[in-house]
């Protein structure tokens, strides 16, 4: 793990200290991970937003205590715990007031919520995906379009550099350089995100 800034400088700490802008950045970075997890758990838009708001409220409320806890879990795990708890609450409520149809569906989803191992796998996947997406957006914003396309078409879409070079009308070597540059930047962005949660791994 690279040396990040001291703990007090992390995003989480800044949120805890109610530093200006920290909370919106927090939501920007982590909100989508929460939502993706909930979506993967079968929530549809409206419920999904409600539950993720509950989660954010939970974070806002609990963050001070969490920071104080000497033996605290990683931030990623803590956020998972909150998210999962809110989701369970949601299904419980839903079961008490089941909609007219789809009871068996609810039952099934309720059982699924109990499956902790699956959940944490989904969580880690969505979390990583979100960090990659976030980092990618930063990089995409900073590099020119053909550099980004060269990276995207070869590294993500898996097309051959020769073909892509022809399409973008650049040298094959330039395709390699472009995609490595993007990848390199991506790595740096991910490290920056890591540094914001020094106890977590990306």
């Amino acid at each position, binding site marked *: 793990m690279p040396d990040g800034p001291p703990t007090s400088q992390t995003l989480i700490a800044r949120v805890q200290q109610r530093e200006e802008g920290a909370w*919106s950045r927090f939501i*920007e970075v982590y909100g989508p991970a929460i939502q993706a997890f909930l979506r993967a758990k079968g929530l549809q*838009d*409206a419920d999904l937003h409600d539950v993720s*708001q509950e989660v954010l409220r939970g974070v806002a409320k609990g963050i001070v205590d969490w920071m104080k806890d000497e033996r605290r879990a990683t931030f990623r795990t803590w956020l998972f715990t909150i998210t999962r708890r809110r989701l369970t609450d949601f299904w419980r409520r839903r079961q008490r007031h089941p909609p007219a149809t789809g009871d068996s569906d609810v039952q*099934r989803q309720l059982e699924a919520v109990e499956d902790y191992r699956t959940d944490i796998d989904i969580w880690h996947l969505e979390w990583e995906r979100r960090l*990659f997406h976030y980092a*990618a957006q930063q990089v995409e914003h900073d590099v020119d379009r053909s550099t980004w396309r060269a990276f995207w078409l070869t590294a993500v879409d898996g097309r051959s550099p020769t073909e892509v070079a022809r399409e973008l009308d650049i040298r094959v070597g*330039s395709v390699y350089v472009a995609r490595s540059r993007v990848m390199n930047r991506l*790595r740096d962005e991910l490290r920056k995100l890591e540094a914001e949660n020094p106890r977590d791994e990306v």
Partner: protein
Amino acid sequence: MNNRDSLLDSERLRKLLAGELSEPEHAEVLAWLEQSPENQNVLDQLAATPDLWEKASRLLANLPSQADRASTVQKPNQPQPPLSFLRATNVSGFIGELGHYRIIERIGSGGMGVVLKAMDPALNRIVAIKVLSPLVAEQPVSRRRFLREAQAAAAINHEHVVRIYAVEEEQRLPYLVMEFVAGLTLQQKIDRDAPLELREILRIGMQIAAGLAAAHHQGVVHRDIKPANVLLENGIQRVKITDFGLARSSEVPALTESGMVAGTPEYMAPEQTHDGNVDFRADLFSLGSVLYAMCTGKSPFRMGSVASTLREVAEKPPRPISELNPEVPEWLIQMIGRLHAKRAEDRFQSAADVERELAAGLSNLQRPVSNMCDRDSAGVRCEHRYRRNWLRAALLATGGALLITVAIVLASIAHRGSRVTGVYDAMSRSNPNNAGKAESRVDGLSPDTSRRTAAVTPNQGGADLSLPITLRRPYDKCYPAAPTDRISVQYAVMAICRNVGIPFQFEKSKAAAGDACRRWVYPDFLDVPAGEALRELLTPLGLAYSVDEQGLFIEPSAMKTDAATRLDLPAARP
């Protein structure tokens, strides 16, 4: 050899990645890279570990469609709603029957129901059937509205609108039988190919405008124009707009818990976020957003960042198209800007006008001298007009931001002076009978109030701005409110009320049903008591309110947002 060794020098490759090599050095390294896959490997590994390359490929795969993912792409692990309403069939090749239609397969699911591909045996043709979700259908009001809207949409007969053949109902479950269009949605095309070529942007935009013009002529407003609702017929790529008027019918106020929400926030018009009275110009705003998305690959107002401060409520213009795609001509950028005017009256005043301008642009493009587009007389005229509107929009936006700031500053003032209950009592006494008109309250105010408000420096409220702000779901479904929008005031009022602990209530109004988008602030919005702020905020704004033992009442007429007057807040904080 020597040369080759120095190339392998990782310091040199690092410089390459950082873009610090000189031109000849750079060319040398390119040649070296092209020599062998081994050399390419060296560079790859220097850039990132193989693990990271693998993850990038896997985790980024669905990034481009992210903006619209929630509404268009069915995640594989998302449970599909059951098709329990289908009757069993014994005809092979079909999964069930509905009415006299034989169902072939499910082709989509959305918030409002499922879409099925089916065979109409009477006419021996393939159709698409949209079945209203049972959750929505069980609300008689929504069911009736769905049927009514669908019938209106069925009257549109235009080559760029998906034809509705029939509107039927089986066991109280309404469904639409529509033309089946094989092809991509515009969203899929954007995900795959964006930014689109100018010619294509103009052609598609023009056809959407033509379809809208036909619908508007029939008095039908789409209300949810977005790339996912624009189908591109295979082969000829003819545009077909689908889901006319349905967005609204699937909004069921009583369903806030179970959650069927229609509309796509990124493409909504400002007025859709607060006003039930949306007219065809809302579609024009959304058309602007669709054009924007075709030009840039992104929807203009992405809520991915869960707009999280109140300052974001005071609207922002989208990121300039020229930053995202320098190839888009200025006249088109300005045209989109005009479609994006926050005030409906500043937009184009008919879809036919938009169609004409796009058609003119397209024919210019097809002329031998193609870049005359932005210099023709129409272009120049428009440019002038756009600029003025833009200035106005900017001024309005500033005003909106100021309003919000004032609210927050007021709240923080009240925080410092802890006269909350006193103020409440005073208000109760001054309006014992809940009979007031706005003027009488304003009279009671010190004439200095508004000036004093304005004089408060933002720094004083600064600390409070960074409090966690979370907005309830409907907010996410919305485009930020227009700056002159009274609902911004309403937010502030409600939030303050909640935090002060004053019970409050807006009078319900019939227009509440079907409101495309209702937005309320979470109580966390301002985490400060703000009794005095309440009075100071309400009165200068000319909002009529009254207080009695049951709480605070704000006259809906003063809110000017009939549809928004229905209270829909989460239960009070413990």
